[in-house]
């Protein structure tokens, strides 16, 4: 199927950007509720129960709390950097989402006034090097924690940012290498092409199981999730890069983290699990929601089940296990492709 380039208008992009921003931050917020609930059930607890039915409005209570909390900037902090660091995390997370196709393209139904009949491409901007862009953006996100930790004049923060640098840089390598093999297969850097390829062939996970696993593992590290949340490991370094943050600035780190989780979820679905294509009778948009939701849930599940690992184990795993595996995978893929061709 030929890619139909949508009519790119400035207004359409802005509208889409705002919608993505609103929806994803809402989902990110809601994610915290889901996380608490899931963890609670896995630990035979109930989780939040008292604000709203089943604690549903806990999110709002938390929001109010974060917004109204005193905004503290430590005396010796570098105020400017301290102030913008959370924004970097949040912004990069959302910017990355701009090149990720969240939904299949669709036409707004006729009966809706004004917009009825308008064709809406699912992506804010289908950059043809989409994957590179997204990976690059997520890598840029590392400046958030890094700067935050260094700006706050706190040794836990400093340790946190050191760990940030080490962890993110290392795992960037694994992410990139692991996704190289699928790129080689599809021959494009556009997510839409990935989707379409799998629509025609079979899910890439079948061809590339190793790459899938490596990508997932690296994704945990990129999103700073257990078992790789050594950046702010409470038991070791208080709260790492976020030690001195409170209120909404602190909240922004979290919105960024949850947005990243969704991004990783979407990338994994689109690159490996067939993206937003129909699956038998299940419509495409439901499929993508289910897939992303599964990845989201999986991250929580892992958090409930597995322990943290030590920073040295982290590095060991990255450089001695994952990276070689990724390289071997690429080589094998290349050899097989050459043979097939």
């Amino acid at each position, binding site marked *: 199927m030929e890619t139909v380039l949508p009519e790119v208008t400035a207004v359409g992009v802005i509208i889409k950007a705002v919608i993505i921003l609103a929806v994803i931050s809402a989902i990110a917020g809601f994610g915290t509720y889901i996380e608490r609930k899931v963890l*609670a*059930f*896995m630990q*035979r*607890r*109930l989780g939040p129960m008292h604000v709203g039915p089943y604690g549903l409005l806990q999110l709002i209570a938390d929001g109010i709390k974060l917004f109204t909390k005193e905004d503290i900037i430590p005396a010796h902090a570098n105020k400017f950097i301290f102030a913008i660091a959370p924004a970097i995390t949040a912004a990069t997370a959302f910017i990355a989402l701009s090149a990720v196709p969240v939904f299949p393209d669709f036409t707004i139904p006729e009966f809706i006034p004004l917009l009825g009949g308008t064709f809406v491409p699912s992506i804010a901007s289908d950059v043809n090097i989409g994957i590179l862009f997204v990976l690059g953006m997520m890598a840029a996100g590392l400046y958030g924690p890094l700067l935050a930790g260094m700006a706050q004049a706190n040794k836990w923060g400093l340790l946190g940012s050191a760990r940030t640098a080490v962890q993110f840089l290392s795992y960037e390598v694994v992410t990139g290498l692991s996704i190289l093999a699928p790129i080689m297969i599809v021959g494009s850097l556009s997510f839409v092409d990935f989707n379409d390829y799998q629509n025609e062939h079979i899910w890439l996970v079948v061809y590339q199981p190793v790459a899938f696993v490596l990508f997932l593992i690296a994704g945990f590290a990129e999103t700073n999730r257990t078992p790789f949340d050594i950046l702010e490991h409470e038991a070791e370094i208080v709260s790492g890069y976020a030690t001195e943050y409170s209120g909404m600035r602190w909240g922004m780190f979290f919105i960024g983290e949850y947005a990243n989780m969704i991004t990783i979820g979407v990338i994994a679905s689109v690159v490996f699990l067939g993206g937003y294509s129909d699956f038998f009778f299940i419509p495409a948009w439901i499929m993508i929601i289910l897939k992303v939701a599964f990845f989201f849930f999986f991250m929580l*599940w892992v958090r409930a*089940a*597995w322990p943290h690992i030590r920073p040295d184990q982290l590095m060991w795993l990255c450089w001695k296990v994952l990276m070689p595996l990724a390289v071997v995978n690429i080589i094998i893929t290349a050899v097989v492709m050459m043979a097939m061709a």
Partner: protein
Amino acid sequence: MSLEQFKDRNVGVQNYRQLDLPQSPTTAMCKVKQVAKRSLKGELFVGLGVTVREMVSTLFGKGLHTTQYPFEKLPISPRYRAIHEMLRLLESGNYRCIGCGLCEKICISNCISMETRYDENQRKEVSAYTINFGRCIFCGYCAEVCPELAIVHGGRYETASEQRASFSLFEDMLTPIDQLSLQQEYQGFGAVSPNADDNIKKTPLAY
């Protein structure tokens, strides 16, 4: 006595068991083998399996461990010594306290005071009774000494209040008359022992 024995002299029966920990791998090959073994053994999935199992069972209401505290309370042991209660006689609804003053006497914090008087029915009436909970150490002596099982420790452990006096009057401690049927017989400190009958000698009665 050896040093080891000396150090352990206060420790109970010593039946500790040494775990057979395997040797750490020495050669590089051994290490690789260990990694492979551990990675492929799927132990990680066992963990995932456990958590998901718990989640499912919790979702279906089994094995839930949360008590929603202010709304739900767990039953407390009868031997727990919380704020006192004054019980009533089940048949007549009169309060049990006869005003003997033994609790007042035995209280080691000296925090019980009472006033008694000769009432219209020629009986001893407890006209006022109070425990100073600022001083009470909840030792339970009063409950133990009470010959009528009138003063007992209740299960009311939430004792934060704006005023210490909030619990301390006779009326505050007395079983409300409309809740007489809910009154529980005290099982705790000073209650009648189950074999009390065996220890009592009978007094002959001439009628």
